Structure formats: structure tokens, C-alpha cells
């Protein structure tokens, strides 16, 4: 291949630069030379994938759903982080609230993250509906602090927790990654408690169009999967990208709940 494989990623933190420069360096020694382009939001990135500007997009779960819907399924997920296989949403309340289940939120105010965040808005609304709560039975407080980035910054979830702690909401929905980042189970137990955790679902993946040559992407995926947590030079890169330990092949069944939520909530295909 004369031109390097081009990866698209969204610049949700300044640290994406060292992450993708690390990737570029790692692939420089591999079978497929790789470079990257950064986008300001996932909508623009998916457009670039569809237009052939980038070969592979590092997509959120919503960006994956969006790509599938816009290509009639003519795309493929190549790989994901190990913890993308088992992402979860946490519902939390102030300590001592006494909530035991989502149905306890009837007539309450629930703070959500950005409306384009699968983990902190789209799936939580679906979970509330599945718990038998109609849209008029729960008041949603939306904190759209990082629109376009599908909740990647975590900023909207932190804002939602502030609303909860200020007693302007009774509960909050957030990604398990943000809950973990707060070390809330250990360090905020006097202030917050998780009372419901969702089933596992899939989050990010590397997405390519069906037209990408297998002779190109297969060696690329193999080289990606070969990244070793035990390599002292690669480990900081993998930690920064948020892996638990390794890259894995995707599990598409883990997106079923989000496809249903997007359809039920009539989420625009171009978010």
C-alpha cells in the first residue's frame, strides 16, 4: 500500500495526540503503515469515513450505530478494547436516598449527561422505559455540556453529579467509567451511592467500510491485537487509551440495546 492507512479519532482531550502518535509509531514497525486525523466531533468523523477521507474510524457505540444506519450495514467493526465488551451504566443517588430500583424514580428528577451520550443519556432513558416509567413519569434534567463528543469527556456526567449533590435532582445516570474515575464507591460513599447497574453492552470500536481490503485490515488488526500490556513502552499508551489489558475482536451482539434505543427514541441518524 503506497499511502498509510488513515485512522480518524475525535479530539476530546489533549491526550489523544500522544495516544495516536504512539499508535503511529507502533504501526511504523508493523505490516501496515498508519497515520491519524483528529476531528472535533463524531458526526464529522463518520462523515469522513463515509466519504473515504479516513479508512478506519475510532468510533463510540453511537457513532458505530450511526455508521451502520447510514451504510445499510455495509461496514464492519474491526476491534475494540477489552472493556468495551462490558460497558455499563450506573444510576446513583445521594447516600441514604433509599432507592432500590429504577421504578423508585417515579415522580423524581433524574440528571442525565449529554443527549448524544449512549451511557449517560440514550440508554438510561431506555432503561427507565423498560422499568415501566413513562416519559411523563420522570423529569429528566439534561446536562448537554459536551455535545458532539458522545459523552467522551465525562464533563456532562460530572455536571449531572453536581446537580445531584446540589439537590436539584434525585438521581443521576452515568457511565461506569466515570463512576470508576471518581473512585466513588470508596471515596464518595458519604455522598453518593449506586443503586442500579445496567446489563453489559459494547462501547467503542474501530469501524471500517465494507470496501476496505481484508488484505489491508486483517494484518492491521493482527498487529493491533499483538500490542502487549507487558511491554513497558506500550503500556502507558494502552493505559492512556483506557484499556483494561488488551485489544479484542468485536462482539456485535453488545450493540443490540443501543440500536433499539436509537430506534425507539428516534435518535437522528446524523448525530
Amino acid at each position: 500500500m503506497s499511502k498509510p492507512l488513515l485512522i480518524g479519532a475525535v479530539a476530546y482531550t489533549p491526550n489523544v495526540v500522544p495516544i495516536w502518535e504512539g499508535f503511529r509509531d507502533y504501526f511504523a514497525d508493523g505490516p501496515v503503515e498508519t497515520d491519524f486525523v483528529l476531528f472535533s466531533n463524531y458526526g464529522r468523523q463518520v462523515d469522513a469515513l463515509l466519504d473515504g477521507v479516513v479508512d478506519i474510524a475510532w468510533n463510540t457505540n453511537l457513532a458505530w450505530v450511526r455508521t451502520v444506519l447510514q451504510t445499510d450495514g455495509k461496514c464492519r467493526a474491526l476491534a475494540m478494547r477489552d472493556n468495551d465488551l462490558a460497558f455499563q451504566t450506573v444510576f446513583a443517588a445521594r447516600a441514604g436516598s433509599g432507592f432500590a430500583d429504577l421504578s423508585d424514580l417515579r415522580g423524581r428528577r433524574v440528571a442525565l449527561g449529554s443527549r448524544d451520550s449512549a451511557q449517560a443519556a440514550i440508554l438510561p432513558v431506555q432503561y427507565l422505559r423498560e422499568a415501566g416509567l413513562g416519559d411523563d413519569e420522570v423529569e429528566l434534567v439534561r446536562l448537554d455540556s459536551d455535545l458532539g463528543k458522545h459523552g467522551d469527556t465525562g464533563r456532562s456526567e460530572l455536571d449531572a453529579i453536581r446537580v445531584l449533590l446540589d439537590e436539584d435532582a434525585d438521581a443521576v445516570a452515568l457511565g461506569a467509567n466515570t463512576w470508576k474515575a471518581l473512585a466513588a464507591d470508596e471515596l464518595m460513599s458519604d455522598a453518593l451511592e449506586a443503586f442500579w447497574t445496567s446489563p453489559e453492552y459494547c462501547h467503542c470500536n474501530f469501524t471500517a467500510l465494507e470496501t476496505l481490503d481484508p488484505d489491508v485490515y486483517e494484518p492491521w488488526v493482527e498487529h493491533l491485537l499483538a500490542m502487549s500490556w507487558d511491554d513497558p513502552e506500550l503500556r502507558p499508551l494502552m493505559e492512556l487509551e483506557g484499556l483494561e489489558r488488551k485489544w479484542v475482536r468485536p462482539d456485535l451482539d453488545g450493540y443490540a440495546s443501543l440500536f433499539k434505543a436509537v430506534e425507539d427514541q428516534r435518535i437522528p441518524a446524523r448525530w
Partner: protein
Amino acid sequence: MVSGGILLDLVERVGGAVVGSIVEVPVAGADPAVIERWCERSGHRLLSVEGGTARILRGPVPDDEAILSSVPADRRPGARLWIYTNFDCNLACDYCCAKSSPQTERRAIGPELIERLVEEGVSSGVSEVFLTGGEPFLLPDLDQIVSACVKRAPTTLLTNGMLFRGRRLELLRSMPREGLALQISLDSATPDLHDRHRGRGTWQRALDGIRTAVAEGFRVRVAATVAADESGAAESAAFHRLLDEVRIDRDDQVIRPIAQRGFAEDGVALTVESLIPEVTVTADGVFWHPVAADHEDQLVTRDLFPLGDAIEEVQRRFADYRRETDAAAQRFTCA
């Protein structure tokens, strides 16, 4: 707001900062133990909590192994083991970093301890041994020392090359050619500069020594120690021409600056923070680097054994310095 608010600030401010940067977060009234624990769980490092502000090094903070592996394998702290066989010398060079001279006390380690040092060193990752002094050829048992080292690792023997006569020439001839390199000091292409620092007539005797060692079949590396105002391009070119003539490989022609240590009043300032350590053992202890083997500020331990512990200590300190300087570099970027 209840106490959890500080954690939201930490996640937002530190999580959004550039890796390796130092982030200041207002934390008035917060429990420092909570901040410390959060940093620990999140892979960041709490540097201080003072005046209501926490200073935090944004992680992931590279561990010692990652930092060590960023240094080329042959320069990695612990790969090279320097041994000062003795401190006395037949010369009294005015820039000697070990303050060696004919009047300097010998302070020899002796072949038995050197053999044990190299053995322990190799089992702790040492891949190359350097024997230096003083002038090692003043030692009558140097052949035993060299033989013990060469058996275990590639060895370089540093000498001024001026004593290859009589009994000491026989000592030289008895040494192995495989696995041993001689490093002989010659500071210039003509006698003036060399003799100015080392004494009248020493240049010619050193050059004779180089020719002798080459003729005896040894690999010879020639090292020039030069002051900044003496190291012009013309001087370097003449130096290389001379060494080419005496059949010294270009890779074995080394020009290095004077270190501001020992007898030297001027030269390159070297500190533990600025030097990549090369574990150095003398009869008095284990030191950070061979240019400061007589200096308390670079003493690692007085205990020669177990050498592995000293090597680990040097590696740990080096990793700490690297983390600190990386963070400092983030603070002082100019553009």
C-alpha cells in the same frame, strides 16, 4: 455542596490535563488523605497540598521499568559497571576527576572483591565492565583482575599507556585479546595540548603505548579529554588523521569534554540529575557515575555487597529524576 465535590473537581481538572503535566487544584478544606487515595487509584501522583492547593502530576505516571527501557540498552543504568581498581597514578593530570597522582593513596579493591563484584553485577544485568583508576598498570595483580572480568563480561581497561615496559609489558602480553579493549588517553594530535595538562613528554610516551598495544594485537580505543576552547574542528581533524595512521578504528576514536570534577576548575558541570548513571565501584563505596567516584554527592552506598541492591537503588533514583525532569520540562516549555 457535600464533601464529594472535591472529587468532581479532581476528575475534571486532572483528567482533562495533558499527561505528564502538573495540575494545581484548589482543595481548601478537603482531606489530603482522600486526594492522595484518589490519585493512587487513578494513576496520578500527588506532589503536595499547600495553601489550599493540591499539586498533582497527571498520570499515567510511567513506572521504573518503562523509564529504564526508554534508554538504549547499552546505556541503561546498570548495564555498565565501572570499577576503580586503584586511585594512585604515575601522572598528576590537572583535570583528573579522580584526583589521582603519585601521592594519592592506592585504595585498591583487589582481585577477589573485583571478581565477586563482576559476578554479582552480571547476575543483576551488567553487560559491560570498565576497569579504571588511577593507573591500573601500577597494580602487580592486574592480570588476575582482567582475567576474572573478561571471563564474565566484555571488559575495557582504561590506561594512560605509558608503562608498557619490562614487567608491565609482560603483564600486558599475558592479557586476553578476546573480550578486552584497552582505552588509552591521548588528548591532542601534537604534544602541546596533551603535555600541558599531563606533563612534559607524556604525549610521546602515550602514543608509543598505543602503538605497542596495537602491535600486540589488542583492540585499542583512544579517548581525548579536551577543554571547550581546545576542541576546534582543525584539531579534531588532525587528531583523527593521527589515529587513522596508527590504525585505530574510527569508532574507537573518542573526543569528550573535561568534567568539572576532581582537580578540574572548569568543565562540564555534572550532577546526579543530569548524568545517566553508570554504576561505579571504588574501595570506598558505590557511586552514581565514574566522573564523580570521589564525591560524596554522588555516593549511592558504602556497602559494596550485595551489588544488586546498589544497582536497583541507582535505577530507582534515576527513574525518580526522570519523572521529575519530565514534569519540569512541561512547566518550562517556551512555545
